[in-house]
């Protein structure tokens, strides 16, 4: 495996504010990597340094073997950038815009393929001005694909999308991943990272606080299962062997279970015997979002 992006000891300050304080990242070719973090955690700064928009204060950065700070044309020819802001020439049609951007690259991807991947076939003759928000966003991705990049930066690709549009965008990204493209994704949505990424890193206050596959991030696989339910009023006391419930949220009883099978067996057996209804019974494992909120908790609240 070759390394697509290699970052060591990256630092960047704006005046007195240290936005990025020593970030290390290594992304292999063909990987779908997601950088997660609350607003102001250093996410955009990091990505924009990799894309060549910002200069770093310190650290080593290599993107496809190039130093992005030098803004070399040869590097730009091999990457695709889908920014958050969605400015496109309003008065050109979808296919004209994609065609215009294709012309900037030495080996562009065929127009029809690009339109297919992002699902804008029915809109190809439509002026950009007339597209819906979701369609414009897919056009952004289409433009990012114009040069048939080896590495694609996707900055919050589905913010503001309705659920159906998100699914379509996810399909498009998976499609690209299956072609072996390296994808560097940033997102606020944990389900998006879970769905798309092979590996995620969480950035908080300018440092990477956790890194790994979404299923095992920050010991998520080892974390305890939670059994949650509500007891009706005047229910008999729970058996002692279940341990005293550890927390009650909105009147819900939560039991952290290292051995969920035993706990559930005991609980349901007790409920059947005593004819007690276990309202809203639920067994859950910590989601990526739970892990993420735990990791970024203070900062995310401060940013609200």
């Amino acid at each position, binding site marked *: 495996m070759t390394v697509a992006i290699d970052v060591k000891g990256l630092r960047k300050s704006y005046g007195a504010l240290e936005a990025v304080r020593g970030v290390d990242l290594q992304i292999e070719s063909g990987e779908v990597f997601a950088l997660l973090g609350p607003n102001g955690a250093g996410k955009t700064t990091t990505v924009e340094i990799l894309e060549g928009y910002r200069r770093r204060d310190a650290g080593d950065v290599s993107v496809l073997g190039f130093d992005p700070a030098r803004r070399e044309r040869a590097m730009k*020819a091999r990457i695709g*950038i889908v920014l958050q802001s969605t400015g*496109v020439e309003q*008065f050109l049609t979808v296919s004209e815009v994609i065609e215009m951007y294709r*012309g900037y690259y030495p080996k562009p991807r065929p127009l029809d393929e690009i339109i297919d991947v992002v699902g804008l076939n029915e809109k190809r003759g439509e002026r950009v001005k007339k597209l819906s928000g979701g369609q414009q966003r897919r056009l952004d991705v289409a433009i990012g694909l114009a040069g048939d990049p080896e590495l694609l930066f996707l900055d919050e690709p589905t913010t503001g999308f309705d659920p159906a549009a998100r699914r379509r965008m996810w399909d498009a990204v998976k499609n690209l991943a299956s072609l072996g493209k390296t994808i560097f994704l940033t997102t606020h949505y944990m389900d998006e990272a879970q769905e798309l990424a092979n590996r995620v890193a969480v950035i908080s206050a300018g440092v990477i606080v956790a890194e790994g596959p979404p299923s095992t991030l920050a010991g998520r696989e080892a974390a305890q299962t939670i059994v949650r339910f509500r007891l009706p009023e005047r229910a008999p006391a729970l058996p002692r062997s279940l341990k005293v419930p550890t927390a009650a949220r909105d009147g819900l009883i939560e039991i952290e279970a290292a051995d969920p099978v035993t706990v559930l067996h005991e609980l349901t057996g007790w409920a059947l015997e005593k004819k007690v209804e276990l309202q809203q019974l639920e067994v859950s494992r910590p989601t990526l979002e739970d892990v993420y909120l735990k990791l970024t908790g203070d900062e995310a609240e401060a940013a609200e």
Partner: protein
Amino acid sequence: MSDVALALRQVKYENRSFWRNPASAFFTFVFPIMFMVIFNLIFGSSKYSPFGSNATVSQFYTPALMAFSIITACYTNIAMGVVFAREEGILKRMRGTPLPPWVYLFARIAVSVMVAVLLVVIIGVFGRVFYHVKLQGVRTLPELVVALVVGAATFCAIGLAMTSFVPNVDAAPAVVNATIFPLLFISDVFIPIQGNGVLTHIAAVFPVKHLSNAIIAAYNPHTVGAGFKGNDLAIMGAWAVAALIVALRRFRWEPRAQS
């Protein structure tokens, strides 16, 4: 594709965008023609004394509105269009592609100059056909061409420099119009200013009056010889150089409103 081919291709797309945009097509292209018709209908056949007893006011408005055309097509159009493209993120997106940055700016400037040339030709033909306004023979033609070229270069440069003083899209029309309209009124463009008052001295500092005077010279019956106006051209040139320096130092590719 070579960079030259890329540049020509970019001109094609920018040109298409320009004409499909009702706002730019109207304010930049229709405005000068509208003024041309209105001013001539109101004042056209009146005598215009500074040019002598045989001259009409159309003989003033034809060259004066050529100057106005260059100013709207180059200054106003570039300043507004580039601020809009910057704030929309179009410039930032372009910066992320292998397209050399100069190609994009060249294409915008080229389209502006093409529009200016088209307007100058339309106004010249209009004046000639409906009001019999003529150049002072072929001898002043070189002077006219030089004035148009220097004027277009100057106002394109000022337009680019001005973008760095406009913080966001909402401010663009206000800043761009507020800087140019007072000058248009005191610089022999909308109204011929006679005498040597305070306004004349103020106008003399800015490039608008020098552009209109350099173009008017080509139509003035009193112009002797080729009529080159070295002074006007030099002052425009100085503005062009100053604007270019400002643009090179202050031009930004990323939206300013967000950061």
